[in-house]
């Protein structure tokens, strides 16, 4: 389990201020998901997201990650909805006792299109922006520092906890615990694996809290930032335009279409 799948590239997209990237993605999602027709999300994916992914030089990884997210879902939704779509009357084919339904097929395609946009846009952001940079940017725009702190601290804690979980699993295995095999064997593995992990993690909380106190975490002053701000006036203008544009577009889609 990695902390995140951030990929460092020297692309123009990467040099953008994280908040700008977030706004681009959010605007695309708003316009795409508000549309009743699945053509809109599909089109946005092809004419907006895909070029941005190429610009960010992460095409291969993006395709791979999107496939991993979408494939199991796509198979599931196609199968279930073409077979069992409620109230469907038109069947275009029958396989054994099952009738494949036209309405279900359309519904499945619509859902896949929307999820393709959701996953694709989301992954563009995740793969090209370090979460800590994102939180830093949000903090500079008014997110309470404590919230930014918990998000990044949790992310950085994942590999530590993962390592601890592995060492507990090794220790329990050495003492004869089986964590593979029948259902009952695996259920029995639950407590010996999880209890030491959770309890030891909780016992660290006090020291972590004291260490935060020792570094003035609870000071009630306006905080400053060691990392420089890399936002530009131009990006700020672009962001506002995107936000307004997306809202107008989405409203138009809902009201007119």
């Amino acid at each position, binding site marked *: 389990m990695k902390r995140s799948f951030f990929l460092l590239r020297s692309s123009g997209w990467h040099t953008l201020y994280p908040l700008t990237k977030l706004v681009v993605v959010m605007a695309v999602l708003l316009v795409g998901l508000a549309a009743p027709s699945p053509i809109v999300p599909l089109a946005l994916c092809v004419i907006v997201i895909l070029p941005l992914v190429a610009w960010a030089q992460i095409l291969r990884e993006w395709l791979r990650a999107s496939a991993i997210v979408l494939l199991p879902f796509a198979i599931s939704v196609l199968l279930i909805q073409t077979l069992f779509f409620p109230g469907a009357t038109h069947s275009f084919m029958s396989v054994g006792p099952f009738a494949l339904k036209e309405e279900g097929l359309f519904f499945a395609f619509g859902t896949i299109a929307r999820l393709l946009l959701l996953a694709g846009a989301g992954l563009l952001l995740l793969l090209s922006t370090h979460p800590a940079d994102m939180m830093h940017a949000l903090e500079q725009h008014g997110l309470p520092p404590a919230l930014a702190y918990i998000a990044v601290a949790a992310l950085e804690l994942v*590999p*530590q906890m993962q390592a601890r979980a592995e060492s507990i699993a090794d220790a329990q295995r050495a003492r004869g615990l089986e964590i593979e095999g029948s259902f009952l064997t695996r259920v029995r593995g639950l407590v010996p694996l999880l209890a030491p992990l959770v309890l030891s993690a909780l016992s660290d909380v006090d020291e*972590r809290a004291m*260490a935060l*106190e*020792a570094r003035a975490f609870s*000071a009630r002053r306006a905080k400053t930032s*060691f990392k420089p701000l890399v936002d530009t006036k131009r990006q700020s203008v672009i962001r506002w335009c995107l936000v307004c544009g997306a809202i107008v577009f989405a409203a138009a889609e809902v009201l007119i279409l």
Partner: protein
Amino acid sequence: MIRFERVTYSYPQTKRPALRDVQLQIDEGSWVAVLGANGAGKSTFCAAVAGFIPHHFRGELYGRVLVNRTDTAATPLSELVTQVGFVFQNPLNQFSGAKLTVAEEAAFGLENLGVPREAMIRRVEAALEWMGLQTVADRSPYALSGGEQQRLALACILVLEPRILVLDEPTSQLDSAGTREVYDSLRSLLASRHLTVILVEHKTEWIAQYADRVLVLNEGAVVLDGSPREVLAHADLSRLGVNPTRYTIAARAARDLGIWPSDRGLPVALEEAVEGFRLLQEPEGIRP
């Protein structure tokens, strides 16, 4: 300067005090080692110096703890941290965990205090230099060695420029190379910046070498207080749950065998022991 005025303290939900009637004064610029068995009150003592008692732990506190003449109970923790710095056992637990580089991590405390960016950069650079970490400033804190991590933990506190440093078993997770790194950095800092150091440490050999005053706690009370020579060679030390240095043990064994003269004091450090055992081999007459 630190003053304990008849301090007695119990944690919440307990009746037995963790500190009993502690009365002492620690002068500026001294290096005080705190010893005692598990549960003797060493960590509680440290927490009281740094103001975690009563602010963080609550519980019942009688008497007063004064740090540079201010009452710790009456000062918010976030203000105390610029006077007393606290370094813990496990470096991983004391990193904020929310910073990606060594320099950013070191700056965390200053960000919280709202120090302007230019001053912050200057203070971070200075602290990293004292701890010998300039070359790793852009690395991840988690990619450092154990000794480096603990020195970073120290740097994170030093940027706040406290006059007093409290270290609760800072080397328990380190090997002897890492321990030496930390102590040598501390010693040079003490010399150049005239800090007061309060240190909990099990490894008495190190204390004999570095500290200039030793306190031994037992059941929350200070039972021995003196120079490393006096305290570490004290006959009651083992009974109080503290291991004497290996040099004292060797000399005491020699004394029990009648080799070491019973009127000569026992050594606590390597040099003294070498000197003492060398004298044993020479006849009294030709002693210079």
